[in-house]
Each structure stands twice: as structure tokens, then as C-alpha cells.
């Protein structure tokens, strides 16, 4: 089992990096430049797959949180934490690429546009999840509190999406994509999704190992008090 894992893991990551490189090369060399926005538009090919994967990671947090509340088994908690970490990292990329796009398209780093507001709110939702985990010492309570928050946070995402849509929108409608662009976009999905999945799994095993090596202390079975000895010392 370990041998297959020792082969599988590097192969997996090599493939992922390779596909990334291929996607970048393709985008820069082959994909047509979009007329209105220019070369910066190509950041969209990174932005959208990462955004979708962020959502998937948030979904994993939700499922793991529900699983924990239902079964109270530690591995659900490890999975939720792993997915949340990845969600925040990916969402940071979403925010950054969104802001770069915005700066290039409308000259401002930040506007309260629906998309940016939604990205920010999502980012905050899951950053709070991570901080909640850091703020609670007791292992058992930490798991319960995070799980409750994880459930509510995900169910909140559609509400945030809907309310963000009410914000004033500077964008003109969505840009239509030429077939070559659609292909590029599709191609980007592969390495990004592999990366998301791989990171969650890797993190999950890391958390599990940490948990197992810092196991809770053994139950208190006291040695009887040696009153004679105490009496002499006192």
C-alpha cells in the first residue's frame, strides 16, 4: 500500500504541474487575445476554474460538517478542516484574479460589484471558519462549533450570491467566448481540479496524522495517595 502511494503521489503532482504548464503555454501562445480587454483577459481562464473549485471545496466542508454532526467521528472533522483550508487558499486566488481583472477593465482595484462582493464575502465566511478553529482549545468543542458553522456557512452561500446580485453592476453583460477560448477554458479545469482534490486529500492525511500523534491523554486512573510519604514530606 505504501509503495503504491509512494509512486502515486509524485506521479499525481507531476501530472498536475505538467498540465498547468501546458495550459499556461497554450493560453499564451495559441489562445486568441480577446478584442475589448486585451491580454489581461486571459486571467479569466485561471479565475473561473479556481472559482468553481472553491465552491466545490466549500461543498466538501458542508458535507464533512454534516457528517461529523451526524456520526461524531473525528475523520469528518479532519476532512472539513482540510477542505476549508483549500477553500480559503483558492478563494484568495479568486479575489486576486478578480481584482486584477477589475483594475485592467475599469481602472479600479476595488468596486462593490456583485462578483467581487460575493468573492469577498465567501472569503470572509471561510476565513472565519479557520479562525474559529484556532480560537477554541477543547478538541471536542472545536469540532462541534466548526461543524455547526460549516453547515450554516455553506447554506448561506446562495443567500450571499443572491444579495450580491443586488449590488450595482458595472460590468456589461458576460462576454461570449469563441470556440478556441472555450477549449482553453475547459483545459484549465483539469489541472485546477486535480490540484484542489490533491490538496484536500493531502491536507486531510496531514491532519489525521497530527491528530493521531497528539492523542488525548489516557483516562485518569490515579495511583492511590501515599499518605505516609506525604506526611513525611509535609
Amino acid at each position: 500500500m505504501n509503495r503504491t502511494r509512494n509512486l502515486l503521489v509524485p506521479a499525481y503532482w507531476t501530472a498536475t504541474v505538467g498540465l498547468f504548464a501546458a495550459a499556461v503555454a497554450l493560453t499564451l501562445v495559441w489562445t486568441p487575445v480577446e478584442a475589448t480587454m486585451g491580454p489581461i483577459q486571459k486571467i479569466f481562464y485561471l479565475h473561473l476554474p479556481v472559482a468553481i473549485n472553491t465552491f466545490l471545496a466549500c461543498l466538501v466542508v458542508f458535507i464533512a460538517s454534516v457528517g461529523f454532526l451526524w456520526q461524531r467521528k473525528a475523520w469528518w472533522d479532519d476532512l472539513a478542516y482540510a477542505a476549508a483550508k483549500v477553500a480559503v487558499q483558492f478563494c484568495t486566488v479568486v479575489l486576486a484574479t478578480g481584482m486584477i481583472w477589475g483594475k485592467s477593465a475599469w481602472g479600479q482595484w476595488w468596486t462593490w460589484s456583485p462578483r467581487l462582493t460575493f468573492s469577498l464575502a465567501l472569503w470572509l465566511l471561510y476565513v472565519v471558519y479557520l479562525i474559529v478553529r484556532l480560537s477554541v482549545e477543547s478538541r471536542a468543542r472545536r469540532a462541534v462549533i466548526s461543524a455547526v458553522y460549516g453547515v450554516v456557512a455553506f447554506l448561506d452561500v446562495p443567500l450571499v450570491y443572491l444579495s450580491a446580485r443586488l449590488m450595482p453592476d458595472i460590468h456589461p453583460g458576460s462576454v461570449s467566448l469563441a470556440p478556441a477560448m472555450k477549449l482553453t477554458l475547459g483545459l484549465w479545469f483539469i489541472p485546477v481540479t486535480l490540484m484542489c482534490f490533491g490538496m484536500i486529500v493531502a491536507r486531510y492525511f496531514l491532519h489525521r496524522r497530527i491528530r493521531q500523534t497528539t492523542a488525548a491523554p489516557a483516562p485518569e486512573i490515579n495511583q492511590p495517595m501515599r499518605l505516609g510519604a506525604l506526611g513525611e514530606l509535609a
Partner: protein
Amino acid sequence: MNDVTALATQPLTSTVAAAAARPAAAVEAVDLCKLIDERPVLRDVTFRVNGGEFVAVLGANGAGKSTLLKIMATLVAPSSGDLRLFGRSLGKDSRAARKDIGLIGHQSMLYRDLSPLENLEFFARLYGVKDPAGRSRRLLEAVGLAHRANDAVATFSRGMTQRVAIARALLHEPQLILADEPFAGLDAPSTAAVEELLGHLHWRGRTIFLVSHDVEQSLRLAERVVVLRGGTLAADRPAKGLKAAEVLEVVGW
């Protein structure tokens, strides 16, 4: 405190008497297990207690006594295994079973900003007791605190608070009484009074589970002794004829 027992234990109604006549178990635990933080706190605990028995649960700290009592009180669900109270399995809805349970815990479970009378009336109403105000007043008189009926519980001493807690546990005339170290922090007269109360409740046909550290006291009060050690049942015997030293050995002290 003598009057409490009279108030707490009306003669058994005919249906309950009939049930007691049948050899139905009051409490039946089968392979109870409880994991907390993946650690087994209770493992394969199996026992059967008939109606009207007085059982003392002994064991060292961390042996699982309080957890067992909490499971019996429906405060905590077991990880696996089955628990039946008066023939009813504690499944999804333990609501009906709670009508028959009275718990006296380490903590008073009272609201310190309210008076004892307000506390008792609140719980009486919550339990659907008939004439909540009257019964609360009578129980409060019986525990000897009528003169402090309208003072906030926050001003009470530990002994007085415990008396109100006992009154509260008896409001709804429970068939099963669970006492988790009720003597902790009580002075000698209060301890004696609580012992007498438990004895009378037993005499009146209630089933009693007492968790205590005091082995000699337990052997004196109870008719059956259950010893937990490391979460498992180490002994389950009648109290008669048991010596404290034997029990201590089983407990692991």
C-alpha cells in the same frame, strides 16, 4: 425533611403497582458503550435493575459513573447499545421517559437570579404537574426553606441550594431517581437528612441510583452495588454482606 417523602411519594397508582408486580425491569442496559473524543468511557455495560431497587454505583474518578447516569437521564446518547427505562427503549424520542426520571446532580441546575419558589413553579409547569404553585410551595416547606421562598437562589448556601434541587427533582413524582454525588459539599445534618430521604423514597417503592465516592455510606444505604472500573462493569452484587475493603479492591484503590 420528613415531610418531603410524604409529598414525593404518593401511593403507587394501580397501573404502576400492576407493572411492579410483573417482573419487568425498571432499568435495563444492554452493551452500553460511550465514546467521548474517540476514547471509550463506557464499554459493554450490561445490567438489569428491577423496580424499587436501590443501587449504588461506585468507582474511581474517570470510571464512567457520571456518564452512565447522564445516559440514564437522557442527557447523553450512548454510542452503541440499548437502554430501556420501564420497558421503553430510549430511542429517538426520550420525551415520555423523562417524565419518570428525577435527577439530583453535582450542580443545582437552578436559576440563581430567581427565587426558589419561582424556580420550582417554573419546573412544575414544565413537567405538567397539577397545581404547580401549590405543590411547589408544599415541597419548599417540606425542605425547610419556606422562610426564604422569595429570595434569589444566588444568596443561598450550598446546602440550601441542594435542598431546592432535591425539591425540584421530586416535583413530578418520578419513579426513577438518579443522584450523582448529592452529598458533595453538604454538612453532617444535611447529609443525614438526604440519606434519610433516599431511604424513605426507597421504602416507598422508587428505584434509586446513587453515584457516590463514599463506599461505606453506599453499602449502608443501597441494597445492590455496581462497580465501574475503566468504563466496564467490574462487579454487580447485593450490598448485604459486602465489606468496604472488598469493594475498594474491586474499585482499584
